[in-house]
């Protein structure tokens, strides 16, 4: 299959879409980015992901692949001669998948809950849970990196991508709530990792600027407030 027959249906501010962009860059795969309007879903999106009607969708030739973690593994397995995204040892893979599931099923949803949190008490409780998660990531990083630059060691890997995609939103939320989620005094190793990850050439420029994410966050929050008052 020609490598230039790769299309990505997505939106620039979606962290899940950004994950796929990181992976394609790491493997040096050229692709066409087809921006999607999620409030008016295109025929192409509905045809390519009829079950969830969601982004990202990778179109490889005429074959759609959905769900960011599924796409990452597909990219790694199809373009197996590029740098590896998943670790090679089955146990290390299980650990990486475990933390990816925690990030997607527990940690990122805390932020979603924040958009509809009604009072200060519930917001504070959610912030606590988020910070507990960050502390866990610090421990995981120290263990997994073994003193090297990334969760994957010398090179960026699955868990770097799965967590790193949220760094922009983490900053935007930090401004919104006046909380420093990545505090050098509390999670120094993770702060170092975040800087190295964000400046890597495969990663840099993909995540929108914090001001842009903050602006989008205001829209999200105001829509949530409108929906709640109905």
């Amino acid at each position: 299959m020609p490598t230039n027959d790769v299309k990505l249906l997505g939106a620039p501010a979606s962290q899940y879409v950004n994950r796929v962009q990181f992976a394609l860059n790491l493997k040096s795969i050229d692709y066409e980015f087809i921006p999607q309007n999620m409030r008016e879903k295109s025929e192409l999106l509905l045809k390519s992901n009829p079950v969830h009607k969601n982004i990202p969708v990778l179109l490889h030739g005429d074959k759609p692949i959905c769900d960011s973690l599924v796409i990452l593994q597909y990219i790694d397995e199809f373009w197996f001669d590029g740098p590896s995204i998943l670790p090679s040892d089955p146990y290390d893979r299980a650990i990486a998948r475990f933390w990816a599931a925690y990030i997607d099923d527990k940690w990122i949803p805390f932020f979603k809950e924040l958009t509809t949190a009604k009072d200060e008490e519930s917001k504070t409780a959610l912030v606590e849970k988020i910070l507990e998660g960050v502390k866990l990531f610090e421990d995981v990083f120290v263990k997994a990196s073994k003193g090297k630059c990334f969760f994957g060691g010398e090179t960026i890997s699955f868990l770097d991508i799965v967590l790193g995609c949220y760094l922009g939103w983490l900053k935007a939320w930090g401004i919104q709530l006046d909380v420093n989620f990545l505090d050098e005094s509390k999670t120094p190793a993770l702060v170092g990792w975040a800087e190295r990850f964000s400046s890597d050439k495969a990663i840099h420029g993909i995540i929108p600027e914090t001001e842009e994410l903050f602006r989008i966050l205001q829209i999200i929050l105001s829509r949530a407030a409108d929906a709640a008052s109905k």
Partner: protein
Amino acid sequence: MAGDKVVVLGTYVSMFSMRAQVALNEKGIEYEKKEEDLANKSPLFLEMNPVHKKIPVLIHNGKPVCESLIIVQYIDEVWHDKNPLLPSDPYQRAQARFWADFVDKKVYDCGRRIWATKGEEKEAAKKEFIGIMKTLEGELGNKPYFGGEDFGYVDVALIPFYCWFHAYENFGNFKTETECPKLVEWAKRCMQRESVSKSLADPHKIYEFVVSLKKKLGIE
């Protein structure tokens, strides 16, 4: 591998524990099943899954692996030379992962709402459940298994729910066989495999378990 020590911490009723057992049985791996009392969690259990404190946990030579689908993939990768569960083609693998993830996100929650709610909520849950089963039936098509000719990853992910159907059907007042005959045919085909029939719980015991759980939780 000779000298491997494999333990599954789980419970008799958990469809998630059953996934791990089916996978190990498919590979012909000897293992010890430890029944965990979730009301009285053992120190071993808390040590092996400190983050979620949930079963199943696979302990392979002392190292814990958590989350049932992650466990199944681990089993498939370690014992990769026997009965592969995931196909070798990257696109087919992606499809298998997608559908196993679909099962994970949809079936348990919806099934639970059938027995844990009443009135309109229960009716809605029942309709949703049948919808989910029809979607899965569509994906199965005319294949003998979700994996195609061979029993595979998605089959492992879904089949343990079959022993819970009797409970869902009783509480929801419907018959899966009427709504999705091809899916029930598939389930019966899977039950012909010893790896599956040895691992699944008795549907009547599941039903009794739900009855007593409802009492404990104060749900009518």
